[in-house]
């Protein structure tokens, strides 16, 4: 293949060793290594830190998702891997080769952009074959690869159309086709589904998952949508203000969030944070709050004891789905595992009922929290109700650092 001349990532390991470009690591399962990457922009003479000391090793064939709010540095990190941004510090290693100083075309990556970036003056066929034509692949190989990709993405009948004649979903497939056809070492995807409507987004999400399984290549995917992150990622990297908050499989992020930010970001509706004071109770400990006292399970008591900080500097975290209507619970809200709150609003959504709660009718809006209760619950608004708490799933966060002391 002619691109091997320009693409050091396709060189075998001994060749790259001779060039002195290896990382010194022998872990052949690591496909992409983001190594202490920091990116600082100069905006009007002022330094803005977009990414701060992010390190992630991405395994071969893994689907890694970067998720976080706008401006958290996820796209900048992806662009640094692509070579479209130069890291201020740190390096990017792909297939054992330090590619930090290399051009995007030399890194063996393919990228799908948020707005698809299809070349408007070319037909679908020309778009998909562009990376092969520019690398001067033989004509028959171009034809066969384009047809193969088109078949995989079910766009064979669109090959002679221009991008402007395609729907958003079709454009998305063409963009994927252009990435797949090159058979790159790594796929980079920058919010590829965000321009689609909600229904199509869910459909394409499933298809992306399917395509990833069939193609089996390492994929780094950026999104601000936690549902996409949770459903697509083998592991999810949560970023905030340029810093990596947690890197873990989706379920672990949900069950054991490392800090208050991750706990609040992952999960819909977001986790409730309730000010609390930990007080001794018999042989254990209770979390005293405005809405009741919760008896802490043994493992959390141990975590508090090991933590060593002041017991009034903790925040209680409870997910809305860990609160339920006491009348529907088997234990009918036994002492230490229930709370009383005023129902400000009831929102039935079919599968659940969302309750917006306050400690009492006079409480301020800022003290609101949410419960996701059974749809059979007949709770109505503007009255006090008793809710059961799934005590096993409560979390305690250090107020100063935001760290989850229970994991």
């Amino acid at each position: 293949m002619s691109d091997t001349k320009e693409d050091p990532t396709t060189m075998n390991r001994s060749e790259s060793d001779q060039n002195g470009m290896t990382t010194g690591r022998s872990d052949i399962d690591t496909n992409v290594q983001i190594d202490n990457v920091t990116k600082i922009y100069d905006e009007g003479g002022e330094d803005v830190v977009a990414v701060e000391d992010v390190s992630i090793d991405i395994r071969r064939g893994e689907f890694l998702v970067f998720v976080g709010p706008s401006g958290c540095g996820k796209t900048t990190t992806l662009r640094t891997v692509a070579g479209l941004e130069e890291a201020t510090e740190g390096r990017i290693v792909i297939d054992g080769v330090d590619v930090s100083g290399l051009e995007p075309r030399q890194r063996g990556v393919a990228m799908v952009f948020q707005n698809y970036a299809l070349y408007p003056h070319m037909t679908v066929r020309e778009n998909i074959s562009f990376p092969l034509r520019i690398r001067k692949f033989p004509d028959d190989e171009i034809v066969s690869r384009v047809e193969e990709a088109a078949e995989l993405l079910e766009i064979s009948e669109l090959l002679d159309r221009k991008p402007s004649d395609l729907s958003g979903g079709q454009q998305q497939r063409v963009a994927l086709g252009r990435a797949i056809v090159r058979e790159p070492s790594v796929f980079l995807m920058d919010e590829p589904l965000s321009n689609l409507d909600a229904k199509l987004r869910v459909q394409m999400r499933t298809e992306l998952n399917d395509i990833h399984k069939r193609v089996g290549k390492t994929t780094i995917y950026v999104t601000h949508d936690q549902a996409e992150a949770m459903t697509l990622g083998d592991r999810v990297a949560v970023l905030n203000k340029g810093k990596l908050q947690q890197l873990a499989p989706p379920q672990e992020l949900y069950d054991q969030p490392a800090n208050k930010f991750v706990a609040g970001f992952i999960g819909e509706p977001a986790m409730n944070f309730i000010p609390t004071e930990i007080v001794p109770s018999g042989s254990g400990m209770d979390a005293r709050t405005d809405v009741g006292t919760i008896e802490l399970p043994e493992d959390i008591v141990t975590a508090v004891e090991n933590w060593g900080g002041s017991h009034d500097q903790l925040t209680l975290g409870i997910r809305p789905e860990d609160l339920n209507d006491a009348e529907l619970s088997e234990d009918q809200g036994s002492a230490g595992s229930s709370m009383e709150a005023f129902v400000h609003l009831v929102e039935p959504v079919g599968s659940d009922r969302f309750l917006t709660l306050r400690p009492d009718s006079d409480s301020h809006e800022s003290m609101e929290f949410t419960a996701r209760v059974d749809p059979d619950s007949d709770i109505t608004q503007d009255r006090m109700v008793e809710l059961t708490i799934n005590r096993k799933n409560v979390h305690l966060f250090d107020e100063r650092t935001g760290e989850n002391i229970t994991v």
Partner: protein
Amino acid sequence: MSLKENNERISYETRQRVWDVIEGPMIVHLVLGLSVFIVISPLLWELLTSFKTNEAVYNLNFIPADPTLSSYYDVLIARGYWKAMLNSIIISSTTTVIVILLSVPAGYAFSRFRFPFDNLIFIGVLFSRLFPPIGLIVPYYQIMTSLGLLNTLPGVIVAQVYLWLPLMVYIMRNFFISIPQELDESARVDGCTRLQAFKHVVLPLAKPGIAACAILTFLYSWREFLFSLIVTRNLDAQPISVAVYRFVGDVSVSWASLAAACVLALIPTAIVVFTFQRYIVSGLTAGALKQ
């Protein structure tokens, strides 16, 4: 409904009817018709005058009683103004080529690259065109004199390039900004060098903008008068825009010949405008709307 509310409603409906008439097709067509008449009538007068003899010009008849092409013969052949036409074609075409060759890469650089003092340099490029041209005539004349370029075609061409390049850099920069940067980036990830990405992806998309700049440069340099007047003396280098001025004598004006010369000067520009008007609009509005 109270009487007051009723009166307010009637007053509102009356106002709406008045606005319906003002915004309606009748007034719009009237205004458009008047505008077209104001623009077209001098051209029509000029065209009809060019078919009269110099004596018949002073008759009050609008339509020439005895149409003749003698003025065209007089201008083109007898007075040798074909040379001025040729000068204009050489000057405008060469200026257009040079301006495009410089403004396209400059516009692309200003739209895509961040480099030290980039904004300052861009403002500097535009700033040179903020002065009225008359203010620069003296230094320009002296430079041309010292370079021995007075009354030469290169002298006029350098002036034209200086005059139109900043505006075209500005238009091209806006046009390139309207082309999403992700396209260049995508091409670079797909395997292109920066130059290949420009050639294969950006340049084909910038064609309408380049066409608009080329047409505008051609038209502007075709009609430019002041600099050409100062740096030329005779038909060796004079473009048609300056040459027609010779018909305005100190004592009298040969109106029929002047009209014929003006019509000849108009023909190429009219052809360019009618053929490429689509590009002119797209070039001038580039960057005005988010695509």
